[in-house]
């Protein structure tokens, strides 16, 4: 069947901000789909709220809307664009749920928009547990015995029928959010309550337990002629009971016989047919009891998924790209295999290597959170490694994780620890083997298949074993070398003979080091920059060589570079690739800390680095040298000191002056950074944090209270400096810049201050010798400008600035690094435009029961969204809505603020009162508000007896919380208030400036829904205002 000509314009929904359970993999799949559909001659309309994505680059769609992924804004886009079709299968659960809503509310029918890829009925059959079970039974397949409950009493019936343990899963949530395993009656009641609250339709599924069974996933593709292929099988090394996103997984499956595997294959095909996914990819999950041969269908996703991104990278079969072609009518045999170019896509990849995926966790960011693993996904990123053997791949994946702190198993009973699996379980398994545990011992505790345990024991006892022989690079070619490959990608293997397969060619190459696993503090923004670097290198006529180990990314798409090496980002691994590639230069400034950490080692090995040299990086990072440089330039910085012991820190503190910003020397994303207000506070910090900091240096900085924080991204070519964007933070200094909302252009800085900032940035960049990007953070108090820090590398804000201004900063920086001059590029002096763009952080507190939802100097956000509007309130309202903290239009506001904020909170209260909100507050705050003549109801604090504030929140009587922190004591009222608000999904504002912005945004949203506008309109013809004005 040929390409469909009855549709011309296709709407694609992205997946929004990076959150746990829905990460960069949907940028990878969405970007592929957009590219393919444009190539096929369709008009593509894209909606995604996440600016740090490649898919929202203007050239990836005909019209790109950075708007909240909510029915309202998407309906506005549909009304404006009148697309013929909506492809909902590439933007994760977010896009699927949204498509479902738009069908149910009649929007799609009203505007004649056809759902392609998956129909409404197919989505329901896969997503609604009851219908899914009935569908599977009708197809002769077994699902776990289960029941659906919408109340605790209904749930109790299951407890009586199935017995414990039981698995509770809320309907329609991401990555199992809100679900869990109940082993005791107490746990059961708790899990049921959480699950009911987490499901948007108040529905949970209670499953009979298949804990300990083998967990398998098959990636299935089907075309309109009902041809079906299995792209990849994935086996979870962790058996059932640990969410597949948190499991170590391996491809292809290792432990099933051919007959067992073929049965899974038959069932996966039966599932996709029964659910009725007409075209595209689906993921089917199975539990297999190895002893009895029983197979249970766990679930199916009628869309591309995290696993399908992994399967694509593991096999070279680009699932999303092919799904997009299938959705517009092509058949599998009409699409060619990109890698071989000579065979069709209607085949099943044959692997001659082993792929291992490892999750990356961030529990250190959320003290007080249960670090145990269960059916509720908690990891924030992942790595993938390819080896010729399982042990090679497993060991490479382990070292790809780049842990901040090495896992050091204690002297205790490791086997007992293994009974409750945590993020460190494989470190413990390996150590247990080294201490003499048997495979049987470990199997008893973990239910891990004996095949894996045998391999892991060998690896534990002889870690060098898999790496004997000669290192060589083998190709991923989809066909186990049966055919010659045209565009393969590479992995290192250790072989007796060392036959290398890399075809280097004659062109000069530039190597780009990626950013490794996503983690808090180093996310998709850096992958975005690396992809732009690869595009720029290719445009310059050189070969782009990418090195990265993160399967979720666009950078590890084989299309992004000329040669991709799927390798760990350690010095040793990178130097080995340099040896083969002999690049003209290596780029380390786009991938965040990961490649930057390698700069010195690469330089020492004589590898040419492009752009800013390690000496300049050191100059900016060494506090003493940088302080001296600022002095020479006449720039101000807050007082600081560096201490090498607790005593030194306490001695230096009065000299620097309180409040202090304290942190250990080497931190990413502000880890372990705190503000202390007194000597007692510092002593407490040193006791809690610096003890564990390995006697490294402790940094003390004077903290500027109530300062406005400013972020600047600039590019320097050694002679000229171009300011790409100046952003003002919404929250005051003291909130990590990654967690703070920021506005471009700045909303309250005068032109003199902006000129001063430009001047200071220019002089610093030139003085440091920056070639490429530099990010500077400033604090402004009154008329005084302070330099907080300067980082000569790509920053987290580069994609946001690029989307806000329409100028691709990373590409310009890369051109400069390749030798071009800024003076020849005709860049605008002030690229701001006359619209307002706001970046807002997205925080994962709702996934970590028990964590404090308070913003501070330590970064906790996993992702970001952007709101674009004609003015600040409109943009802020959009950004809040996109971030999931949809502000209420009416109702009750609860206010409780620290004494110094009492006068400021009154203004917010007055504005909300005028908008018709009812006010409730704790005693002090209530008194301040009442004094201004605003009616307010006083609530009890926790210690003042029930009904107290937390009761109010938990009852759902509050619609918005404004709470600024009073101190650092753990388990304070503030903590309980924020925890309760997060648990109920009530927006919780923790700063005064955030509160003011919220009040203005509510007023704006009440006036009218802000208009939607595409990036192409904003930037293309430079006439943003007409499009943005209502």
């Amino acid at each position, binding site marked *: 069947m040929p390409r469909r000509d009855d549709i011309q314009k296709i709407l694609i929904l992205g997946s929004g901000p990076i959150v746990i359970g829905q990460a960069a993999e949907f940028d990878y799949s969405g970007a592929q789909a957009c590219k393919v559909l444009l190539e096929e001659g369709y008009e593509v309309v894209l909606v995604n709220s996440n600016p740090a994505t490649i898919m929202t680059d203007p050239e990836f769609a005909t019209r790109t809307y950075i708007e909240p992924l909510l029915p309202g804004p998407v309906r506005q886009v549909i009304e404006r664009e009148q697309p013929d079709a909506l492809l909902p299968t590439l933007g994760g659960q977010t896009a699927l749920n949204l498509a479902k809503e738009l069908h149910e509310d009649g929007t799609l029918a009203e505007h004649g928009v056809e759902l392609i890829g998956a129909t409404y009925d197919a989505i329901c059959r896969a997503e609604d547990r009851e219908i899914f079970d009935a569908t599977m039974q009708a197809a002769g397949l077994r699902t776990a015995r289960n029941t659906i409950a919408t109340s605790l009493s209904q749930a109790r019936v299951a407890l009586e029928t199935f017995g414990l343990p039981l698995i509770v899963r809320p309907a329609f949530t991401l990555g199992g959010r809100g679900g869990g395993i109940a082993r005791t009656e107490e746990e059961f009641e708790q899990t049921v309550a959480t699950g009911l609250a987490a499901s948007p339709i108040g529905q949970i599924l209670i499953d009979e337990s298949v804990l300990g069974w083998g967990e398998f996933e098959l990636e299935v593709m089907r075309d309109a002629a009902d041809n079906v292929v299995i792209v990849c099988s994935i086996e979870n090394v962790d058996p059932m009971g640990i969410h597949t996103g948190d499991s170590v997984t391996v491809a292809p499956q290792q432990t099933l016989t051919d007959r067992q595997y073929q049965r899974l294959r038959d069932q996966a095909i039966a599932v996709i047919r029964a659910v009725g996914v007409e075209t595209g990819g689906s993921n089917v999950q199975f539990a297999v009891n190895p002893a009895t041969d029983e197979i249970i269908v766990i679930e199916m996703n009628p869309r591309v998924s995290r696993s399908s991104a992994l399967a694509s990278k593991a096999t070279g079969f680009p699932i999303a790209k092919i799904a997009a072609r299938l959705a517009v009518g092509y058949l599998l045999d009409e699409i060619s295999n990109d890698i071989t170019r000579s065979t069709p896509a209607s085949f099943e990849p044959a692997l001659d290597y082993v792929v291992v995926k490892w999750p990356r966790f961030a529990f250190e960011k959320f003290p007080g959170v249960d670090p145990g693993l269960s059916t509720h996904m908690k990891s924030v990123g992942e790595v993938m490694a390819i080896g010729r053997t399982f042990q090679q791949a497993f060991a490479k994946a382990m070292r790809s994780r780049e842990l901040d702190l090495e896992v050091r198993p204690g002297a205790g009973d490791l086997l007992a620890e293994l009974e409750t699996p945590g993020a460190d379980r494989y470190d413990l398994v390996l150590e247990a083997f080294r201490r003499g545990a048997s495979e049987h011992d470990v199997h008893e505790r973990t239910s891990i298949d004996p095949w894996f345990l045998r391999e892991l024991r060998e690896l534990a006892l002889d870690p060098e074993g898999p790496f004997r022989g000669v290192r060589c690079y083998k190709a991923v070619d989809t066909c186990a070398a049966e055919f010659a490959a045209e565009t393969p990608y590479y992995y290192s293997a250790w072989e007796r003979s060392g*036959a290398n397969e890399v075809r280097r060619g004659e062109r000069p190459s530039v190597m780009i080091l990626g950013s490794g696993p996503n983690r808090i503090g180093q996310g998709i923004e850096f992958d975005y920059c690396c992809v732009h670097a690869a595009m720029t290198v290719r445009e310059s006529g050189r070969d782009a060589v990418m090195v990265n180990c993160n399967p979720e990314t666009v950078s590890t798409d084989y299309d992004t570079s000329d040669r991709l090496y799927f390798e760990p980002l350690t010095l040793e691994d990178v130097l080995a690739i340099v040896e083969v590639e002999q690049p003209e230069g290596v780029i380390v400034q786009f991938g965040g800390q990961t490649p930057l950490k390698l700069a010195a080692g690469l330089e020492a090995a004589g590898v040419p680095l492009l752009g800013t040299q390690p000496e300049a990086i050191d100059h900016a990072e060494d506090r003493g040298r940088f302080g001296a440089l600022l002095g020479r330039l006449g720039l101000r910085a807050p007082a600081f000191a560096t201490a090498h012991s607790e005593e030194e820190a306490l001695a230096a503190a009065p000299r620097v002056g309180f409040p202090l910003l304290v942190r250990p020397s080497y931190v990413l994303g502000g880890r372990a950074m705190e503000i202390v207000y007194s000597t007692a506070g510092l002593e407490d910090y040193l006791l809690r944090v610096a003890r564990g900091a390995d006697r490294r240096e402790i940094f003390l900085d004077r903290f500027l209270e109530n300062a406005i924080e400013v972020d600047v991204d600039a590019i320097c070519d050694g002679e000229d400096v171009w300011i790409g964007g100046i952003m003002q933070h919404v929250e005051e200094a003291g909130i990590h810049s990654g967690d703070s909302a920021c506005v471009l252009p700045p909303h309250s800085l005068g032109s003199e201050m902006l000129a001063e900032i430009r001047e200071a940035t220019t002089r610093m960049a030139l003085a440091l010798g920056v070639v490429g990007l530099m990010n500077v953070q400033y604090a402004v108090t009154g008329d005084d400008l302070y330099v907080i820090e300067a980082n000569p590398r790509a920053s987290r804000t580069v994609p946001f600035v690029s989307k806000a201004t329409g100028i691709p900063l990373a590409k310009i920086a890369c051109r400069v690094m390749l030798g071009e001059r800024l003076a020849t590029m005709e860049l605008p002096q002030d690229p701001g435009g006359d619209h307002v763009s706001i970046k807002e952080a997205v925080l994962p507190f709702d996934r970590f029961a028990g964590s404090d939802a308070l913003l501070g100097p330590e970064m906790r956000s996993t992702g970001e969204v952007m709101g674009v509007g004609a003015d600040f309130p409109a943009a802020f309202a959009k950004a809040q809505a996109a971030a999931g903290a949809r502000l209420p239009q009416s109702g009750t506001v609860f206010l409780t603020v620290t004494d110094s904020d009492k006068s400021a909170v009154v203004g917010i209260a007055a504005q909300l009162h005028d908008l018709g909100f009812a006010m409730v507050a704790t005693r002090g705050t209530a008194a301040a508000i009442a004094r201004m003549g605003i009616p307010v109801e006083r609530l009890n604090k926790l210690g003042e007896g029930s009904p107290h504030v937390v009761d109010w929140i938990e009852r759902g009587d509050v619609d918005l919380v404004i709470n600024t922190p009073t101190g650092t004591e753990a388990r304070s009222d503030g903590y309980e208030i924020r925890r309760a608000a997060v648990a109920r999904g009530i927006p919780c504002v923790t700063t005064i400036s955030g509160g003011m912005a919220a009040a203005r945004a509510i007023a704006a949203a009440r006036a009218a829904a802000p208009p939607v506008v595409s990036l192409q309109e904003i930037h293309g013809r430079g006439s943003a205002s007409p499009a943005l004005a209502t």
Partner: protein
Amino acid sequence: MLAYVLLEDGTRFDGDAVGAPRDVTGEVVFTTGMSGYQESMTDPSFARQLITFTYPHVGNYGVSASAMESDRIHARAAIMRAAVNPSRAPGAEQGWLDWLREQGIPAISGVDTRALVRHIRDAGAMRGGVFGAQTPEAEARERITAEPSMVGLDLAREVTVAESRTFAGDGDGPRIAALDTGIKHSIVGNFTSRGATLELHPCTTTAQELLASDPDGVFLVPGPGDPAALDYVVDTVRELLGRKPVFGICLGHQLLSRAVGLDTFKLPFGHRGANHPVKDLRSGRIAITSQNHGFAVRGEPGARLRTDYGEAELTHVNLYDGTIEGIRLLDVPAGCVQYHPEAGPGPNDSLGLFDEFIAEIERGSRALA
């Protein structure tokens, strides 16, 4: 203990001896299937061949009686990257390497099988051997040279049954006579479970002998070696065509094709694996197929063919390289496929073909009666 693979062109790959301690020669081939090692080793079609497994780990789930495709190992050796020998896997009755050793089959592990496969892919399947490190290369080379080439080799006589055997069906389906050039248990099972009775005869059985028992149809089964060396079977088939419905798989497909006047040729390195797409040109549907053949039938896909028995239609084509995967005669009840609908190992996409075979045999048998 060290061992090595030597090819007839002198290319050598080193590894560890992990099977029976003896030297062996034959044709070195590779299969890209990622599971089903035991099925492959016991498939008679691999007679006189040394199987290179492209998937690195082999032996993961041990061996068991239920995975046997015949009563013994037919392949001459296993060449692997990372063989393992666990016997504690669920369902395993014995460790993979223990079994190979017990059966006297040499095996080598730790070989850069990908480099070996790339060499065969570029240079073609060739003779070679697996040798213990103590065997001098010169001696190994002589032994390889002494090994006959696969072209022109009749191996059906080596693997065929000594005397006729009957496998009763689970029902009252047709009685099918099969000429045994290397039957697999999965083929027998697929007929008997559908109610058909399979009478297996030595490949040297004549047409008269077969007709004497008056079967409802004749089935030509897979097997090793060069179809061009089996003129005696081809002659038998020529006598049967038009008198009995004749259907076949793999070598059976090649023999039927030769019987109607088509040619066969040796593929450069064969088709062996579980992932080849085959399109049924009648329905447009694609099946992922199990493949195991070194020879193929010559012809242009899509075209109608003139044969000695009237017109034939190409029914199936391999989407990888366009080779012929299925033929059906239009004037006499006969047809065949090159791939393995019985799987064992491989995907079950084409099991329905057995229903088709049986239905056509029944229909053809009534028409010819």
